[in-house]
């Protein structure tokens, strides 16, 4: 039976090595990000964030028109658009494109959307070999795991573990030097790039006015994936649309800084269709797969629509005290970290993992670093409301609802509130004597397992205040 979310968290928290790995990696990311968005490095940082938010809002509030514009332009430049209502449709589309073009081997660049639709599994089942070409994804594919982090898929693995993996799966002599490991991967994958009949990519941005996909990377595998094979298929969520190429002047200044602490990644590709006449290389065919898979539903929720502004930089995960302790694999669903906590309930339904929106102290670090200013804490609160409303309708967790109703009632009756405090003081914990409490009953022992709990004060503030005021103006019994 699958572990519950709480069990998963418990396991992650007990894994010291994991904790260390995540901390080291995220500390590095955070340090570099802080440096590169500091006023000396990026004086108009806050302005850029607001501009990015505004562009996304504009685009998504008019998504229908921009999608039509995008489609028209892609076709104008010789590409084809395939509309995919869900993951199954997208996988089906890739399969038929592969079959049409006699593809036996496909190379793939890192794409969260392809994780979402489980593309690789289905291609393999249908006899098409698929290679992940991003080094981190390649490592994860070899070990049969899903990515640990949006930007650094193998962040949790040590060089020793990777060396073992390569020795086992690639027949390489065991060597844990990163340069040697990288060289081995380069060699294996270079061959595949040259042989593959199909290159599959995601997209960081879709440019409506140009009919283009924009992709950023450091390794060069995306350029190879989209330039060498005869067929290029780009799969993207419909929410990736931005109006114009010029809008990239805002987004490109934010994406790499937040994702990997660089002013720009090594390569940024702006691709608009198959190779044109006169051009020497490039794909002969280009397909853009537009994926809905629940995005239109999120779009319909005006309050939570901003969830779709996400540019998948991973900065929120890097600062999240929860993510940094439990890691990407502890999150149910495709997406992890704070963005995962608000996407997954909206993609998979509130009941998929109803604890997810509550697995946060609402510290707000995520919203503070988000380059497109998604108010993640606000989204979490909205989802908590949705979960409780649904549970109330389904009559689940009734005791909790009753408890809060009782609490609410008590809080509206100050004199009763005072009496409750008095009784608590006088009768419930007589032994407390002002010492902090070491053990509480029932579910509250989740506190006292590791912390002491404050005893009720000998006298409440309101009592002390009354006494204080009396002392100052004897005979005046009024409060205040």
């Amino acid at each position: 039976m699958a572990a519950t979310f709480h069990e998963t968290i418990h396991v992650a928290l007990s894994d010291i090595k994991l904790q260390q790995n995540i901390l080291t990696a995220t500390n590095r990311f955070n340090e570099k990000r802080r440096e590169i968005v500091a006023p000396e490095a990026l004086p108009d940082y806050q302005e850029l964030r607001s501009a990015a938010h505004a562009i996304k809002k504009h685009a998504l509030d008019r998504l229908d028109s921009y999608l039509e514009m995008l489609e028209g332009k892609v076709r104008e430049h010789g590409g084809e658009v395939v509309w995919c209502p869900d993951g199954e449709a997208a996988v089906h589309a890739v399969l038929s494109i592969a079959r049409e073009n006699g593809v036996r081997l496909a190379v793939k660049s890192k794409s969260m959307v392809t994780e979402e639709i489980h593309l690789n599994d289905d291609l393999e089942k249908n006899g098409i070999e698929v290679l992940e070409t991003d080094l981190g994804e390649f490592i994860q594919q070899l070990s049969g795991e899903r990515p640990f982090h949006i930007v650094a898929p193998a962040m949790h693995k040590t060089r020793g573990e990777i060396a073992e993996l390569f020795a086992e799966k690639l027949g390489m002599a065991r060597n844990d030097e990163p340069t040697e490991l990288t060289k081995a991967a380069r060699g294996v994958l270079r061959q595949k790039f040259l042989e593959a009949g199909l290159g599959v990519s995601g997209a960081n941005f879709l440019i409506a006015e140009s009919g283009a996909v924009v992709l950023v990377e450091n390794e060069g595998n995306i350029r190879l994936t989209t330039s060498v094979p005869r067929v290029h298929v780009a799969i993207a969520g419909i929410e990736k649309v931005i109006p114009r190429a010029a809008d990239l002047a805002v987004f490109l200044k934010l994406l790499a800084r937040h994702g990997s602490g660089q002013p720009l990644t090594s390569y940024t590709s702006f691709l608009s269709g198959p190779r044109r006449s006169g051009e020497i290389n490039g794909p002969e065919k280009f397909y853009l797969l537009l994926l809905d898979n629940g995005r239109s539903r999120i779009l319909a929720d005006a309050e939570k629509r901003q969830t779709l502004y996400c540019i998948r930089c991973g900065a929120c995960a890097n600062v999240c005290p929860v993510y940094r302790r439990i890691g990407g694999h502890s999150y149910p669903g495709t997406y992890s970290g704070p963005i995962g906590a608000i996407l997954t309930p909206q993609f998979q339904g509130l009941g998929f993992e109803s604890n997810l929106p509550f697995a946060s102290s609402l510290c707000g670090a995520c919203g503070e670093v988000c380059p497109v200013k998604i108010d993640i804490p606000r989204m979490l609160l909205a989802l908590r409301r949705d979960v409780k409303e649904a549970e109330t309708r389904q009559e689940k967790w009734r005791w909790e609802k009753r408890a809060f109703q009782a609490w609410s009632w008590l809080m509206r009756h100050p004199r009763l509130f005072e009496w409750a405090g008095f009784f608590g003081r006088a009768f419930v914990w007589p032994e407390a004597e002002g010492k902090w409490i070491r053990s509480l009953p029932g579910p509250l022992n989740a506190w006292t397992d590791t912390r002491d709990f404050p005893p009720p004060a000998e006298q409440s503030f309101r009592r002390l205040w009354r006494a204080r005021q009396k002392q100052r103006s004897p005979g005046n019994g009024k409060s205040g």
Partner: protein
Amino acid sequence: MRGYLSKSLMGLRVSLFVTCLVDQLFPQVGLAMADVLERAGCECEFRAEQTCCGQPAFNSGYTEEAAAVARHFLKTFEGADCIVTPSGSCCSMIRHHFAEVFEEGSRERETAERLAAHVYEFSEFLLNVAQVEDVGARFAGTVTYHDSCHALRDLGIREQPRRLLSKVRELQLREMQPAEECCGFGGTFSVKLGELSSDMLAGKIEAIVNTGADAVVSIDPSCLMQIRGGLSRRELPIQTLHLAEVLART
């Protein structure tokens, strides 16, 4: 009677919202806050009808229940020009979320929106409204300051407590590393995700201990409850104090 307020603000009438935690568990914080405000030259009132801001229900997703409590708050503080609270998270609740729990366009929402402009966190009030930095306090010891998340990120309060602490005679302030990390309280999170909450607390305590300070200071009673709970369990001799308690000492 000493007074640190400018002449024009002298006698400024302040309505105390002490919060439910302070009322029942940490009354000394409320008294200290009143002392400091009076010493500065304000006149304090305490409306006995007050209880809670409703945040526990709101953060748990129970909007109706939160609204009921918020309604009571609005009634209690009707007509108050200047409400001061020793809790960053409660101030944030009132300033940013009260309006949300009421129907759009309703009278209650309007009242809540108007009220939002009149509620202040204690240190914010001293610096930004009363314009007082030195309240004549004295505290012999080293102190480290914990930035509570709501105060820091929702209210933008970072400088005010530090400025106030800098004027306390004999007090030495040491910043912790890492700074600005959550203590792990998060309301019911502290119990529902207790293991995570404790793990976060452990990180915070390590940072505090590493400063070598005698005391940790915060402007949020819930953070203080969490931090003190951890220090007490570990039997560490570090005091946990609300800013008001430090400023009240002379």
